[in-house]
């Protein structure tokens, strides 16, 4: 299945080599029940530039407790993919099944963490995390206790009475994750959640996320444009191509688990990275304006060269 839509121009197939442990893991993964299924999914909408086909005929199955990343060039519809699963964006054709049930609008079985900060600024952290529980009509005491537990889990128990504006960006996204998880979703959708963070915070957050994923019964669909992030996190990576957004390849990541930041240098990682690069940044066609050299004339004096 992972080879079904392989790019024939890609000759370097090193990324397909899996160690025994990794292969065994994937075999086990495929035996798990399918929790999320996209069938002939298409999504079109009107924008200022006319009618846009964001997604066309997407067919994907994701198993329970899988961590899948979606990657692709900008404009490939990867955000739309997350929004469609969340029920925030209507589909034009096909359907989404969660645990066998067709999706019809947003619901608490699919939590979402957004790129922008979406904590409710008028609520304390506890009240934010409790929000989903309140919507389910849970009584006060237990809801409060549970919210605290989730805050403890993301390491922010001390700040339970603070307000979002008192937190840093990374802390806000941790609360957002806690809030989404507290509502008890089957699937956690994450739309470039660490995109706005600085590199060191981002690395920390990636480690946090893996930690949470290990300990919580949750299936994660993670949207990113960062290839390293995708390889570090994902079991499988769904590569989309732009205009219209179609599946280019659905790849099993050969990097063994548990993942650590120092795996960047391993051959599996590098092979994977090289392959993604070739998919997302194909060799530039001649004369493309983005790659033409800048028409500079020299404005500095001789001997004042910096390189």
């Amino acid at each position, binding site marked *: 299945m992972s080879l079904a839509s392989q790019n024939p121009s890609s000759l370097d197939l090193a990324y397909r080599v899996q160690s025994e442990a990794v292969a065994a893991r994937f075999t086990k993964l495929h035996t798990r029940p399918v929790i999320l299924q996209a069938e002939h999914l298409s999504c079109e909408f009107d924008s200022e530039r006319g009618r846009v086909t964001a997604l066309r005929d997407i067919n994907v199955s994701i198993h329970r407790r899988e961590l899948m990343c979606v990657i692709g060039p900008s404009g490939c519809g990867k955000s739309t993919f997350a929004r469609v699963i969340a029920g925030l964006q209507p589909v034009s054709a096909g359907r989404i099944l969660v645990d066998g049930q067709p999706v019809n609008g947003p*619901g*608490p079985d699919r939590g979402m963490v957004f790129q922008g900060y979406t904590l*409710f600024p008028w*609520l304390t952290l506890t009240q934010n995390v409790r929000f989903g529980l*309140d*919507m389910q009509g849970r009584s006060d005491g237990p809801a409060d206790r549970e919210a605290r537990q989730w805050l403890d889990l993301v390491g922010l128990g001390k700040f339970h009475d603070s307000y979002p504006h008192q937190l840093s960006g990374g802390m806000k996204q941790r609360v*957002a994750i806690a809030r989404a998880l507290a509502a008890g979703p089957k699937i956690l959708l994450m739309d470039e959640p660490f995109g706005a963070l600085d590199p060191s915070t981002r690395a920390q957050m990636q480690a946090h996320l893996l930690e949470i994923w290990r300990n919580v019964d949750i299936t994660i669909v993670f949207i990113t444009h960062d290839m390293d992030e995708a390889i570090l996190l994902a079991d499988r990576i769904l590569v989309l191509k732009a205009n219209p957004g179609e599946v280019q390849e659905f790849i099993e990541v050969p990097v063994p688990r548990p993942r650590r930041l120092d795996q960047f240098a391993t051959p599996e990682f590098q092979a994977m990275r090289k392959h993604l690069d070739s998919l997302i940044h194909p060799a530039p066609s001649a004369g493309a304006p983005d790659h033409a050299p800048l028409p500079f004339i020299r404005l500095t004096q001789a001997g004042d060269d910096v390189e």
Partner: protein
Amino acid sequence: MPLFAVRREPPARYRWLLWVLAFALPLAMWSAISYVPWLWHPQVKITDAGSVAWIKPGLRLDRADFQAQVTKASSAGLVPPSGEPANPLYLPPPHAVGRALYGAFTTPPTLKGDLWLHESIVMSIKTIFLGFALSSFVALPLGLLCGSYPALSRMTEPFVDFVRYMPAPAFGALMVAIFGIHLEPKIGIVFLGTFFTQVLVTAGTVRRVDPALLEAAQTLGAKRGLLVRRVILPACLPDLYNDTRILIGCAWTYLVVAEVVGVSSGITFFINQQAKYRNFDNVYAAIMIIGLIGLATDQLLSFIGARLFGWKLTRRSRTRTFFAWLVAPAKANPSSIRV
């Protein structure tokens, strides 16, 4: 740091000074125009009529007319009139207005049954308050629903927009026919003057709530009523509060017409009456009273607002915590009222 820097707040120690200057500078300009004879003074106030029959002491003449009279009288061998430079009656000097302001509060009503000035002011404030409260009571919920449900907005806003352009004063006679001649029709005018604008402004503010917050809430299971009550309302409350602050000014404008509907009363009737008799020192005194009331109200509301909506700022407050508890009354939660 320089005091005047583009887009840079001045140092805190200068802020009070700047606030005082905001009032001192216009007052200084007004004083200059009033007391420096060569600054404006387009007229001449007669001190001695000379022998021109129709000129009386105290009369104000345009300078050119005065000169013409002087020349005419001189050439006829008569005593020319004399006078001093003066501003038009429409611009009394600060001390006259100050005296009128003081006198207005210290002079008891001449007639039995008439009101002290402060009683008239209380009556005006009552009219404004009731009219505005009534308007807010209906317009805020309606605006919230219109801003939340586009279908409802399409069903109501065209008509609201249509009525909004009708001049509220034109309904004076109708208000009297329905509500009688005392305070009620005046409250009705203030209501009509503010209500329709308030609905549209409220709906507009509600529509500006960050859609990402709504989407986040939806993925957490919030639907329809809960979405409106638990997300849209608290998210736009600080802005609605500010809108309300601005719209109160709107209500004051309608007070002027409201107070000549039915039995004449209140501070703006006083203005109309005194303008009719050309007592402009009294007119400006009353206008200043209204300005002071407006300024005081606004400062108070802004002070309360900063306390209520601390989450918009960096400071926490008891009032706000209490308010958060009010907005989320579904379950009394002891931990959320603890500060």
